[in-house]
Protein backbone atom coordinates (compact mmCIF):
# COMPACT_ATOMS: atom_id res chain seq x y z
CA UNK A 1 0.00 0.00 0.00
CA UNK A 2 1.31 3.42 -1.01
CA UNK A 3 0.36 6.73 0.61
CA UNK A 4 0.54 9.89 -1.49
CA UNK A 5 -0.10 13.57 -0.79
CA UNK A 6 -0.92 16.45 -3.06
CA UNK A 7 0.76 18.35 -4.60
CA UNK A 8 1.91 15.33 -6.59
CA UNK A 9 5.09 15.54 -8.62
CA UNK A 10 7.56 13.29 -10.42
CA UNK A 11 7.07 10.50 -7.83
CA UNK A 12 3.93 9.60 -9.78
CA UNK A 13 6.14 8.21 -12.56
CA UNK A 14 7.30 5.47 -10.20
CA UNK A 15 3.81 4.03 -9.76
CA UNK A 16 2.99 0.76 -11.48
CA UNK A 17 -0.23 -0.75 -12.77
CA UNK A 18 -1.84 -2.71 -9.90
CA UNK A 19 -0.38 -0.55 -7.12
CA UNK A 20 -2.89 0.25 -4.39
CA UNK A 21 -2.72 3.91 -3.38
CA UNK A 22 -4.31 6.08 -0.67
CA UNK A 23 -4.39 9.79 -1.45
CA UNK A 24 -4.46 12.73 0.96
CA UNK A 25 -4.90 16.33 -0.13
CA UNK A 26 -7.00 18.06 -2.76
CA UNK A 27 -9.12 16.38 -5.41
CA UNK A 28 -11.34 18.19 -7.89
CA UNK A 29 -14.43 16.59 -9.45
CA UNK A 30 -15.29 16.94 -13.11
CA UNK A 31 -17.55 14.66 -15.11
CA UNK A 32 -19.47 14.88 -18.40
CA UNK A 33 -20.60 18.51 -18.56
CA UNK A 34 -17.50 19.75 -16.72
CA UNK A 35 -15.19 18.20 -19.29
CA UNK A 36 -17.23 19.73 -22.09
CA UNK A 37 -16.89 23.14 -20.47
CA UNK A 38 -13.17 22.64 -19.89
CA UNK A 39 -12.73 21.90 -23.60
CA UNK A 40 -14.59 25.10 -24.50
CA UNK A 41 -12.42 27.16 -22.14
CA UNK A 42 -9.22 25.64 -23.56
CA UNK A 43 -10.43 26.40 -27.10
CA UNK A 44 -10.74 30.07 -26.11
CA UNK A 45 -7.30 30.04 -24.52
CA UNK A 46 -8.74 30.35 -21.01
CA UNK A 47 -7.94 28.27 -17.96
CA UNK A 48 -10.00 26.36 -15.39
CA UNK A 49 -11.23 28.09 -12.20
CA UNK A 50 -8.93 25.80 -10.18
CA UNK A 51 -5.24 25.23 -10.96
CA UNK A 52 -5.03 21.45 -11.21
CA UNK A 53 -1.23 21.28 -11.28
CA UNK A 54 -0.16 18.43 -9.00
CA UNK A 55 -3.73 17.66 -7.96
CA UNK A 56 -6.09 14.75 -8.67
CA UNK A 57 -9.11 15.01 -10.97
CA UNK A 58 -12.05 12.81 -10.06
CA UNK A 59 -14.85 11.51 -12.31
CA UNK A 60 -17.62 11.75 -9.74
CA UNK A 61 -20.90 13.44 -9.00
CA UNK A 62 -21.53 13.65 -5.26
CA UNK A 63 -24.79 13.82 -3.32
CA UNK A 64 -24.35 16.98 -1.21
CA UNK A 65 -26.29 19.04 1.29
CA UNK A 66 -25.97 22.56 2.64
CA UNK A 67 -24.07 22.87 5.92
CA UNK A 68 -24.25 26.44 7.20
CA UNK A 69 -22.53 28.67 4.65
CA UNK A 70 -20.85 25.74 2.96
CA UNK A 71 -21.56 22.22 1.76
CA UNK A 72 -21.28 18.70 3.07
CA UNK A 73 -20.81 15.52 1.02
CA UNK A 74 -23.54 12.95 1.84
CA UNK A 75 -22.18 10.20 -0.43
CA UNK A 76 -19.79 10.19 -3.38
CA UNK A 77 -18.49 7.61 -5.82
CA UNK A 78 -16.86 7.22 -9.20
CA UNK A 79 -18.66 7.24 -12.54
CA UNK A 80 -17.63 5.42 -15.73
CA UNK A 81 -14.52 7.13 -17.10
CA UNK A 82 -14.72 6.13 -20.75
CA UNK A 83 -17.21 8.94 -21.41
CA UNK A 84 -14.44 11.43 -20.59
CA UNK A 85 -11.87 9.76 -22.88
CA UNK A 86 -12.26 12.27 -25.73
CA UNK A 87 -11.39 15.18 -23.42
CA UNK A 88 -8.86 13.83 -20.95
CA UNK A 89 -5.58 13.94 -22.89
CA UNK A 90 -5.98 17.69 -23.38
CA UNK A 91 -6.88 18.20 -19.71
CA UNK A 92 -3.70 16.38 -18.63
CA UNK A 93 -1.56 18.30 -21.11
CA UNK A 94 -2.98 21.76 -20.32
CA UNK A 95 -3.29 21.56 -16.55
CA UNK A 96 -0.47 19.40 -15.26
CA UNK A 97 -2.91 17.27 -13.26
CA UNK A 98 -1.08 14.18 -12.00
CA UNK A 99 -3.82 11.72 -11.21
CA UNK A 100 -7.17 10.94 -12.83
CA UNK A 101 -9.58 8.94 -10.65
CA UNK A 102 -12.66 7.11 -11.94
CA UNK A 103 -13.92 3.64 -12.71
CA UNK A 104 -13.99 1.21 -15.60
CA UNK A 105 -10.79 2.17 -17.41
CA UNK A 106 -9.68 4.68 -20.07
CA UNK A 107 -8.29 4.46 -23.58
CA UNK A 108 -5.13 4.85 -25.58
CA UNK A 109 -5.12 8.66 -25.84
CA UNK A 110 -5.33 9.09 -22.08
CA UNK A 111 -2.65 6.43 -21.62
CA UNK A 112 -0.36 8.29 -24.02
CA UNK A 113 -0.95 11.60 -22.20
CA UNK A 114 -0.13 9.86 -18.89
CA UNK A 115 3.12 8.55 -20.32
CA UNK A 116 4.12 11.90 -21.77
CA UNK A 117 3.24 14.10 -18.80
CA UNK A 118 3.91 11.77 -15.88
CA UNK A 119 0.33 11.18 -14.77
CA UNK A 120 -1.64 8.06 -13.78
CA UNK A 121 -5.25 6.89 -14.03
CA UNK A 122 -6.50 5.15 -10.88
CA UNK A 123 -9.82 3.50 -10.09
CA UNK A 124 -11.96 3.54 -6.98
CA UNK A 125 -14.40 0.68 -6.28
CA UNK A 126 -17.73 1.70 -7.78
CA UNK A 127 -20.63 1.71 -5.38
CA UNK A 128 -18.61 2.20 -2.21
CA UNK A 129 -20.21 5.58 -1.70
CA UNK A 130 -20.79 5.61 2.05
CA UNK A 131 -17.20 4.61 2.81
CA UNK A 132 -15.87 7.27 0.53
CA UNK A 133 -17.96 10.00 2.12
CA UNK A 134 -16.00 9.30 5.32
CA UNK A 135 -12.74 9.96 3.46
CA UNK A 136 -13.83 13.44 2.43
CA UNK A 137 -12.71 15.85 5.16
CA UNK A 138 -14.53 18.89 3.81
CA UNK A 139 -15.72 20.75 0.77
CA UNK A 140 -13.16 23.46 -0.02
CA UNK A 141 -15.23 25.07 -2.75
CA UNK A 142 -17.49 24.61 -5.72
CA UNK A 143 -17.53 26.05 -9.25
CA UNK A 144 -19.92 25.71 -12.17
CA UNK A 145 -22.98 25.01 -10.02
CA UNK A 146 -25.01 26.15 -13.03
CA UNK A 147 -24.25 22.68 -14.47
CA UNK A 148 -26.21 21.07 -11.63
CA UNK A 149 -24.91 19.41 -8.47
CA UNK A 150 -23.53 16.19 -10.02
CA UNK A 151 -21.74 17.99 -12.85
CA UNK A 152 -20.39 20.96 -10.87
CA UNK A 153 -16.67 21.19 -10.07
CA UNK A 154 -16.31 20.23 -6.41
CA UNK A 155 -13.02 20.95 -4.70
CA UNK A 156 -12.59 18.45 -1.89
CA UNK A 157 -10.09 17.91 0.87
CA UNK A 158 -9.62 14.17 1.30
CA UNK A 159 -7.79 12.00 3.79
CA UNK A 160 -6.56 8.57 2.72
CA UNK A 161 -8.91 8.42 -0.24
CA UNK A 162 -8.78 4.81 -1.33
CA UNK A 163 -8.24 2.03 -2.09
CA UNK A 164 -7.25 3.43 -5.47
CA UNK A 165 -5.74 0.97 -7.91
CA UNK A 166 -3.41 2.30 -10.60
CA UNK A 167 -4.99 1.17 -13.89
CA UNK A 168 -2.84 3.25 -16.27
CA UNK A 169 0.71 4.13 -15.24
CA UNK A 170 3.27 6.52 -16.77
CA UNK A 171 5.23 3.64 -18.24
CA UNK A 172 2.75 2.72 -20.95
CA UNK A 173 0.82 -0.06 -19.21
CA UNK A 174 -2.97 -0.24 -19.14
CA UNK A 175 -4.41 -2.73 -16.62
CA UNK A 176 -7.85 -3.12 -18.20
CA UNK A 177 -6.40 -3.75 -21.66
CA UNK A 178 -4.26 -6.50 -20.18
CA UNK A 179 -7.17 -8.03 -18.30
CA UNK A 180 -9.43 -7.96 -21.38
CA UNK A 181 -6.71 -9.64 -23.45
CA UNK A 182 -6.17 -12.35 -20.83
CA UNK A 183 -9.95 -12.88 -20.50
CA UNK A 184 -10.25 -13.42 -24.28
CA UNK A 185 -7.40 -15.91 -24.20
CA UNK A 186 -8.97 -17.86 -21.32
CA UNK A 187 -12.37 -17.97 -23.02
CA UNK A 188 -11.01 -19.14 -26.38
CA UNK A 189 -8.28 -21.48 -25.16
CA UNK A 190 -9.70 -22.88 -21.92
CA UNK A 191 -13.39 -22.24 -21.31
CA UNK A 192 -14.88 -22.88 -24.76
CA UNK A 193 -12.88 -26.09 -25.41
CA UNK A 194 -13.91 -27.38 -21.97
CA UNK A 195 -17.59 -26.71 -22.69
CA UNK A 196 -17.39 -27.94 -26.28
CA UNK A 197 -18.32 -24.51 -27.64
CA UNK A 198 -16.93 -23.40 -30.99
Amino acid at each position, binding site marked *: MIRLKTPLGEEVRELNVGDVVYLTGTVVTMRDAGHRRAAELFARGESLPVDLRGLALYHAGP*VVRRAGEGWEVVVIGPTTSTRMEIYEAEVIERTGVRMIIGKG*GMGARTAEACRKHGAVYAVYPGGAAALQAEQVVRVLGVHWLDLGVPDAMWVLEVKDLGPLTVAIDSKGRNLYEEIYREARRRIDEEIYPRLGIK
Partner: protein
Amino acid sequence: MEVKETLREALVKLIEAAATSLPRDVEEALVRAYEIESSPAAKSFLKAMVENVKIARKKKLPICQDTGVVLFYVKVGDKFPFTGALLSSLREATVEATRRVPLRPNTIDVFSGKNPGDNTGRNMPWAEWEVVEGEEAEVTVMLKGGGSEVVGRAKTLVPAEGIKGIMKYVIEAIYEAGPQPCPPVIVGVGIGPTVSVAMKLASKALLRPVGQRHEDPEVAKLEETLLRAINDIGYGAHGMGGKVTAFDVHIDYAARHPASLSVAVVLGCWATRRASMRIKKDGKVEYTSHPELNEV
Protein backbone atom coordinates in the same frame (compact mmCIF):
# COMPACT_ATOMS: atom_id res chain seq x y z
CA MET B 1 -54.07 5.11 10.57
CA GLU B 2 -55.86 4.13 7.41
CA VAL B 3 -54.58 1.11 5.53
CA LYS B 4 -53.41 3.26 2.65
CA GLU B 5 -51.25 5.42 4.90
CA THR B 6 -49.85 2.32 6.62
CA LEU B 7 -48.97 0.82 3.26
CA ARG B 8 -47.33 3.99 1.97
CA GLU B 9 -45.25 4.34 5.13
CA ALA B 10 -44.29 0.66 4.97
CA LEU B 11 -43.23 1.05 1.34
CA VAL B 12 -41.07 4.08 2.15
CA LYS B 13 -39.33 1.98 4.80
CA LEU B 14 -38.95 -0.83 2.28
CA ILE B 15 -37.29 1.46 -0.27
CA GLU B 16 -35.06 2.92 2.42
CA ALA B 17 -34.01 -0.58 3.48
CA ALA B 18 -33.20 -1.49 -0.12
CA ALA B 19 -31.07 1.65 -0.62
CA THR B 20 -29.14 1.48 2.62
CA SER B 21 -29.03 -2.15 3.75
CA LEU B 22 -27.73 -4.82 1.37
CA PRO B 23 -29.78 -8.05 1.51
CA ARG B 24 -28.13 -10.75 3.65
CA ASP B 25 -27.60 -13.18 0.77
CA VAL B 26 -25.72 -10.57 -1.29
CA GLU B 27 -23.68 -9.41 1.69
CA GLU B 28 -22.70 -12.99 2.53
CA ALA B 29 -21.61 -13.54 -1.06
CA LEU B 30 -19.54 -10.35 -0.89
CA VAL B 31 -17.83 -11.39 2.33
CA ARG B 32 -17.14 -14.85 0.88
CA ALA B 33 -15.63 -13.26 -2.24
CA TYR B 34 -13.36 -11.17 -0.02
CA GLU B 35 -12.27 -14.24 1.92
CA ILE B 36 -11.37 -16.37 -1.11
CA GLU B 37 -9.85 -13.62 -3.29
CA SER B 38 -6.07 -13.72 -3.58
CA SER B 39 -5.37 -10.94 -6.10
CA PRO B 40 -4.23 -7.97 -3.96
CA ALA B 41 -6.02 -5.21 -5.90
CA ALA B 42 -9.34 -7.07 -6.06
CA LYS B 43 -9.02 -8.04 -2.39
CA SER B 44 -8.43 -4.45 -1.29
CA PHE B 45 -11.49 -3.39 -3.31
CA LEU B 46 -13.65 -6.14 -1.80
CA LYS B 47 -12.53 -5.13 1.66
CA ALA B 48 -13.60 -1.54 0.96
CA MET B 49 -16.94 -2.77 -0.38
CA VAL B 50 -17.62 -4.89 2.72
CA GLU B 51 -16.76 -1.93 4.92
CA ASN B 52 -18.96 0.35 2.81
CA VAL B 53 -21.96 -1.93 3.33
CA LYS B 54 -21.49 -1.77 7.10
CA ILE B 55 -21.15 2.03 7.16
CA ALA B 56 -24.21 2.48 4.92
CA ARG B 57 -26.36 0.28 7.17
CA LYS B 58 -25.17 1.92 10.37
CA LYS B 59 -25.56 5.49 9.15
CA LYS B 60 -28.59 4.82 6.94
CA LEU B 61 -26.74 6.16 3.92
CA PRO B 62 -27.22 4.92 0.36
CA ILE B 63 -24.79 2.08 -0.38
CA CYS B 64 -24.09 3.59 -3.80
CA GLN B 65 -24.53 7.17 -4.99
CA ASP B 66 -26.47 5.75 -7.95
CA THR B 67 -29.64 4.80 -6.12
CA GLY B 68 -31.03 3.54 -9.40
CA VAL B 69 -34.55 3.50 -10.73
CA VAL B 70 -37.37 2.12 -8.58
CA LEU B 71 -38.79 -1.22 -9.77
CA PHE B 72 -41.61 -3.00 -7.95
CA TYR B 73 -42.47 -6.69 -8.27
CA VAL B 74 -45.89 -7.36 -6.75
CA LYS B 75 -47.56 -10.71 -6.13
CA VAL B 76 -51.12 -10.11 -5.13
CA GLY B 77 -53.54 -12.75 -3.83
CA ASP B 78 -56.91 -13.02 -5.60
CA LYS B 79 -58.60 -12.39 -2.24
CA PHE B 80 -56.23 -9.64 -1.03
CA PRO B 81 -58.47 -6.75 0.04
CA PHE B 82 -56.19 -3.74 -0.53
CA THR B 83 -55.08 -4.00 -4.15
CA GLY B 84 -56.29 -0.48 -5.00
CA ALA B 85 -54.57 1.10 -1.99
CA LEU B 86 -51.36 -0.70 -2.85
CA LEU B 87 -51.54 0.36 -6.50
CA SER B 88 -51.80 4.05 -5.65
CA SER B 89 -49.21 3.85 -2.85
CA LEU B 90 -46.29 2.78 -5.02
CA ARG B 91 -45.79 6.16 -6.68
CA GLU B 92 -46.43 8.19 -3.51
CA ALA B 93 -43.96 6.08 -1.56
CA THR B 94 -41.33 6.59 -4.27
CA VAL B 95 -41.70 10.37 -4.06
CA GLU B 96 -41.53 10.33 -0.28
CA ALA B 97 -38.54 7.96 -0.16
CA THR B 98 -36.65 10.15 -2.64
CA ARG B 99 -37.01 13.05 -0.23
CA ARG B 100 -36.41 11.13 2.96
CA VAL B 101 -33.55 8.66 2.29
CA PRO B 102 -32.52 10.70 0.11
CA LEU B 103 -32.40 8.89 -3.22
CA ARG B 104 -30.70 10.53 -6.19
CA PRO B 105 -33.39 11.80 -8.55
CA ASN B 106 -32.69 9.62 -11.57
CA THR B 107 -35.74 9.61 -13.83
CA ILE B 108 -35.44 11.74 -16.95
CA ASP B 109 -38.20 12.16 -19.51
CA VAL B 110 -37.06 10.54 -22.74
CA PHE B 111 -38.34 13.36 -24.98
CA SER B 112 -38.24 16.59 -22.96
CA GLY B 113 -35.07 15.64 -21.08
CA LYS B 114 -36.69 16.97 -17.87
CA ASN B 115 -36.03 15.40 -14.50
CA PRO B 116 -39.02 15.84 -12.16
CA GLY B 117 -36.67 15.35 -9.20
CA ASP B 118 -38.71 12.68 -7.44
CA ASN B 119 -37.91 9.43 -9.31
CA THR B 120 -41.28 9.36 -11.06
CA GLY B 121 -42.17 9.84 -14.70
CA ARG B 122 -44.15 8.13 -17.42
CA ASN B 123 -44.56 4.48 -16.30
CA MET B 124 -42.12 5.08 -13.44
CA PRO B 125 -41.80 3.76 -10.83
CA TRP B 126 -42.14 0.54 -12.84
CA ALA B 127 -44.38 -2.15 -11.38
CA GLU B 128 -44.95 -5.75 -12.48
CA TRP B 129 -48.09 -7.36 -11.09
CA GLU B 130 -48.75 -11.04 -10.78
CA VAL B 131 -52.00 -12.51 -9.46
CA VAL B 132 -51.75 -15.61 -7.30
CA GLU B 133 -54.21 -17.51 -5.10
CA GLY B 134 -54.53 -16.25 -1.56
CA GLU B 135 -55.37 -13.42 0.82
CA GLU B 136 -51.99 -11.74 1.09
CA ALA B 137 -49.72 -9.65 -1.11
CA GLU B 138 -45.96 -9.64 -1.46
CA VAL B 139 -44.00 -6.61 -2.63
CA THR B 140 -40.34 -6.57 -3.65
CA VAL B 141 -38.59 -3.36 -4.54
CA MET B 142 -35.39 -3.32 -6.55
CA LEU B 143 -33.23 -0.23 -7.03
CA LYS B 144 -31.52 -0.81 -10.34
CA GLY B 145 -28.40 1.25 -11.06
CA GLY B 146 -27.38 2.48 -14.50
CA GLY B 147 -23.99 0.78 -14.78
CA SER B 148 -25.29 -2.78 -14.63
CA GLU B 149 -28.22 -2.02 -16.91
CA VAL B 150 -26.29 -0.68 -19.91
CA VAL B 151 -24.93 -4.17 -20.54
CA GLY B 152 -28.28 -6.04 -20.46
CA ARG B 153 -29.17 -7.73 -23.75
CA ALA B 154 -31.43 -10.23 -25.51
CA LYS B 155 -31.43 -12.20 -28.77
CA THR B 156 -33.40 -14.93 -30.48
CA LEU B 157 -31.14 -17.81 -31.38
CA VAL B 158 -31.80 -20.51 -33.97
CA PRO B 159 -32.99 -23.56 -32.00
CA ALA B 160 -30.13 -25.61 -33.51
CA GLU B 161 -27.70 -23.45 -31.50
CA GLY B 162 -29.16 -25.13 -28.41
CA ILE B 163 -27.93 -24.86 -24.84
CA LYS B 164 -24.35 -24.37 -26.02
CA GLY B 165 -25.51 -21.35 -28.00
CA ILE B 166 -27.09 -19.99 -24.85
CA MET B 167 -23.91 -20.55 -22.83
CA LYS B 168 -21.86 -18.75 -25.47
CA TYR B 169 -24.28 -15.83 -25.57
CA VAL B 170 -24.08 -15.42 -21.78
CA ILE B 171 -20.28 -15.75 -21.63
CA GLU B 172 -19.80 -13.21 -24.44
CA ALA B 173 -22.18 -10.81 -22.67
CA ILE B 174 -20.04 -10.98 -19.54
CA TYR B 175 -16.83 -10.63 -21.55
CA GLU B 176 -18.03 -7.50 -23.33
CA ALA B 177 -19.50 -5.97 -20.16
CA GLY B 178 -16.03 -6.02 -18.57
CA PRO B 179 -15.80 -3.84 -15.47
CA GLN B 180 -18.84 -1.73 -16.42
CA PRO B 181 -21.57 -3.51 -14.40
CA CYS B 182 -19.45 -3.31 -11.20
CA PRO B 183 -18.59 -7.01 -10.72
CA PRO B 184 -18.92 -9.35 -8.90
CA VAL B 185 -22.31 -9.48 -10.59
CA ILE B 186 -25.45 -11.56 -10.25
CA VAL B 187 -26.27 -12.95 -13.68
CA GLY B 188 -29.96 -13.31 -14.58
CA VAL B 189 -30.62 -15.48 -17.63
CA GLY B 190 -34.04 -15.95 -19.21
CA ILE B 191 -34.85 -18.44 -21.96
CA GLY B 192 -38.13 -18.67 -23.83
CA PRO B 193 -40.19 -18.29 -27.00
CA THR B 194 -39.75 -14.51 -27.41
CA VAL B 195 -37.20 -11.93 -26.34
CA SER B 196 -39.78 -10.19 -24.15
CA VAL B 197 -40.57 -13.38 -22.23
CA ALA B 198 -36.87 -14.18 -21.91
CA MET B 199 -36.11 -10.65 -20.65
CA LYS B 200 -38.90 -10.76 -18.13
CA LEU B 201 -37.66 -14.06 -16.73
CA ALA B 202 -34.05 -12.82 -16.68
CA SER B 203 -35.00 -9.68 -14.74
CA LYS B 204 -36.99 -11.66 -12.22
CA ALA B 205 -34.20 -14.19 -11.81
CA LEU B 206 -32.25 -11.44 -10.01
CA LEU B 207 -34.81 -11.58 -7.23
CA ARG B 208 -33.84 -15.15 -6.30
CA PRO B 209 -31.40 -15.22 -3.35
CA VAL B 210 -27.74 -15.83 -4.14
CA GLY B 211 -26.88 -19.50 -3.64
CA GLN B 212 -30.38 -20.81 -4.27
CA ARG B 213 -30.49 -23.21 -7.25
CA HIS B 214 -33.30 -23.65 -9.77
CA GLU B 215 -35.71 -26.43 -8.76
CA ASP B 216 -35.05 -28.35 -11.99
CA PRO B 217 -31.74 -30.25 -11.50
CA GLU B 218 -30.77 -29.83 -15.15
CA VAL B 219 -31.19 -26.05 -14.98
CA ALA B 220 -29.40 -26.02 -11.63
CA LYS B 221 -26.47 -27.83 -13.23
CA LEU B 222 -26.34 -25.32 -16.08
CA GLU B 223 -26.29 -22.49 -13.52
CA GLU B 224 -23.27 -24.07 -11.85
CA THR B 225 -21.48 -24.71 -15.14
CA LEU B 226 -21.98 -21.11 -16.24
CA LEU B 227 -20.95 -19.70 -12.86
CA ARG B 228 -17.68 -21.59 -13.03
CA ALA B 229 -17.06 -20.49 -16.63
CA ILE B 230 -17.76 -16.84 -15.83
CA ASN B 231 -15.48 -16.86 -12.81
CA ASP B 232 -12.76 -18.49 -14.91
CA ILE B 233 -12.80 -15.41 -17.18
CA GLY B 234 -10.85 -13.79 -14.37
CA TYR B 235 -12.15 -10.23 -14.25
CA GLY B 236 -12.63 -10.27 -10.48
CA ALA B 237 -14.08 -7.39 -8.47
CA HIS B 238 -14.43 -4.28 -10.65
CA GLY B 239 -12.32 -5.93 -13.34
CA MET B 240 -9.18 -5.72 -11.21
CA GLY B 241 -8.35 -9.31 -12.10
CA GLY B 242 -9.36 -12.05 -9.68
CA LYS B 243 -11.37 -15.13 -8.83
CA VAL B 244 -14.89 -13.82 -8.31
CA THR B 245 -16.50 -12.16 -11.33
CA ALA B 246 -20.02 -13.35 -10.46
CA PHE B 247 -21.71 -14.17 -7.16
CA ASP B 248 -24.20 -16.43 -8.90
CA VAL B 249 -26.04 -17.30 -12.10
CA HIS B 250 -29.83 -17.60 -11.97
CA ILE B 251 -31.65 -19.08 -14.94
CA ASP B 252 -35.36 -19.36 -15.56
CA TYR B 253 -37.19 -20.48 -18.66
CA ALA B 254 -40.49 -20.82 -20.46
CA ALA B 255 -41.35 -23.43 -23.11
CA ARG B 256 -40.16 -22.19 -26.50
CA HIS B 257 -41.61 -21.95 -30.00
CA PRO B 258 -40.49 -24.55 -32.60
CA ALA B 259 -38.70 -21.82 -34.53
CA SER B 260 -37.19 -19.77 -31.75
CA LEU B 261 -34.87 -19.97 -28.77
CA SER B 262 -34.76 -16.52 -27.19
CA VAL B 263 -32.22 -15.71 -24.53
CA ALA B 264 -31.80 -12.64 -22.33
CA VAL B 265 -29.09 -11.58 -19.90
CA VAL B 266 -29.64 -9.05 -17.14
CA LEU B 267 -26.91 -8.23 -14.64
CA GLY B 268 -27.17 -7.08 -11.07
CA CYS B 269 -24.15 -5.15 -9.76
CA TRP B 270 -22.29 -6.28 -6.61
CA ALA B 271 -24.69 -4.03 -4.69
CA THR B 272 -27.89 -5.64 -5.95
CA ARG B 273 -30.38 -3.80 -3.80
CA ARG B 274 -33.76 -5.40 -3.16
CA ALA B 275 -36.15 -5.63 -0.24
CA SER B 276 -39.39 -7.57 0.27
CA MET B 277 -42.43 -7.43 2.49
CA ARG B 278 -45.67 -9.35 2.94
CA ILE B 279 -48.98 -7.57 3.49
CA LYS B 280 -51.52 -9.57 5.50
CA LYS B 281 -55.26 -9.56 4.94
CA ASP B 282 -55.67 -7.20 7.92
CA GLY B 283 -53.27 -4.70 6.33
CA LYS B 284 -50.39 -5.53 8.69
CA VAL B 285 -46.94 -5.68 7.17
CA GLU B 286 -44.13 -8.16 7.69
CA TYR B 287 -40.67 -7.43 6.28
CA THR B 288 -39.22 -10.66 4.94
CA SER B 289 -35.83 -9.65 3.50
CA HIS B 290 -34.98 -7.25 6.33
CA PRO B 291 -36.61 -8.83 9.43
CA GLU B 292 -34.88 -6.32 11.70
CA LEU B 293 -37.48 -3.78 10.54
CA ASN B 294 -40.27 -5.83 12.16
CA GLU B 295 -38.95 -5.26 15.66
CA VAL B 296 -39.29 -1.48 15.56
